[in-house]
């Protein structure tokens, strides 16, 4: 490939990545706006002596968000272009200098077996949360407080950890070892 072609290809990757990240930020902001309204409906205790109060609040928050996103479907946050950019970021991270450490970390953190996932579903109550390796997190776009990237099988989930709700997910996003 000639030098000009390489430069053009690199530029395309950079522009595509920037556009995808910008769109992702906007979609996250939309979700957080909706979530703020839902949170104001259910209140937010700093802490409670009874887990009953905490679980009730979690379920109420999830219910409010589900109602507000009644038509939410897979790909609403992780659009095709955004999912493509995430796949690229994950592939680059997991084939670079940090690859071995990340794979060892994934193995050490009790991998979670693949599950049937759906947007707006609760994260399964009895299913452990596999830790997400720090190097992966540091190479993905940062998230607002309360949202987390989690791995289930090879899928990457966007989890609302306060509502225990699956906001969106990308199937087979994490490269197979």
């Amino acid at each position, binding site marked *: 490939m000639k030098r000009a072609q390489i430069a053009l290809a690199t530029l395309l990757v950079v522009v595509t990545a920037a556009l995808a990240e910008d769109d992702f930020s906007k979609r996250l902001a939309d979700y957080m706006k909706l979530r703020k309204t839902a949170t104001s409906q259910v209140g937010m*205790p*700093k*802490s*409670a*002596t*009874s*887990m*009953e109060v*905490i*679980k009730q609040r*979690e379920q109420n928050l999830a219910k409010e968000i589900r109602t507000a996103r009644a038509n939410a479907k897979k790909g609403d946050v992780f659009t095709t272009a955004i999912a493509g950019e995430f796949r690229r970021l994950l592939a680059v991270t997991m084939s670079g200098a*940090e690859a*071995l*450490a*990340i794979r*060892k*970390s994934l*193995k*050490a*953190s*009790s991998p979670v077996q693949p599950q049937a996932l759906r947007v707006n579903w609760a994260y399964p*109550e*009895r299913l*452990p*949360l*596999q*830790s*997400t*390796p*720090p*190097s992966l*997190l*540091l190479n993905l776009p*940062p*998230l607002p*407080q309360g949202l*987390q990237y989690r791995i289930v099988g090879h899928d990457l989930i966007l989890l609302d*950890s*306060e509502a*225990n709700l699956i906001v969106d997910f990308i199937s087979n996003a994490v490269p197979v070892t």
Partner: protein
Amino acid sequence: MKRLVLFLVLITATAAELKLPMKDKSVRFAVIGDNGTGLPPQFEVAKEMIKDHGSFPFDFVIMMGDNIYGSQRPDDYKRKFEEPYQPLLDAGVKFYASLGNHDDPNQRLYKPFNMDGKRYYSFTKGNVEFFALDSNYMDAAQLDWLKKALSGSKATWKICYFHHPMYSHGSDHGADVDMRKEVEPLFLENHVNVVISGHEHSYERLKPQKGIAYFVLGNSGQLRPHNLKPSSETEKGFDTDQGFGLVEVTGNDMYFQVISRTGQTVDYVVLHADSSNLSSVEPSR
């Protein structure tokens, strides 16, 4: 009659032989990890802790995560936490939890875990500052917080605790080397003395790594028998029964005793914090 006999046996049962010096105004605490099963071994470990609290009145307990296994309904918090440790809770002993991979992230709101609504937090007792981290999700925000919190600490003893071990020779999980890569430089830069983790369902004390003492204690409810594959980095290991730790800090000395479910001393070590805050280890006695 049978009930009476059992009662007599229980009240005459002796606590473990404690080696801790019980010095005036020392910081005293217990360590548990991977405890929340709600099964008999957890209750038996708790019973041993309660007995030892009689002779070594520790003020608080630090938890290495997997505080509640399986179902996370309100009843589970009673059966897997409140009931086994009720006498300690009644005696005013506080529990400071960190989150494991089996824990509901909203445990941070559960008042008896004293997390103040946070995934990661710090607290100070005497000349010891504790940093409870969330190793499930070590993101940039947590790393930034940790850097600031550690560099601002004036404590003689800086103890970090969290679920996934950075050094471990358990054959089920092993060390989380990616976390080590990101977190260890912060520990070294800020003179952390002691790191305690769980996740492996056994006990291991490692030889100090770059001047930091590492303990893995994840057998206060769970147990994976014969799971430990000691290496040259292992100083002491125990994987045939459940257990917990009792710790006393006085001045520049830390006394760390590990006791099994049946009250046997599994390990005992004395650490010294020197002028640069790094610890040296005195052989077990």
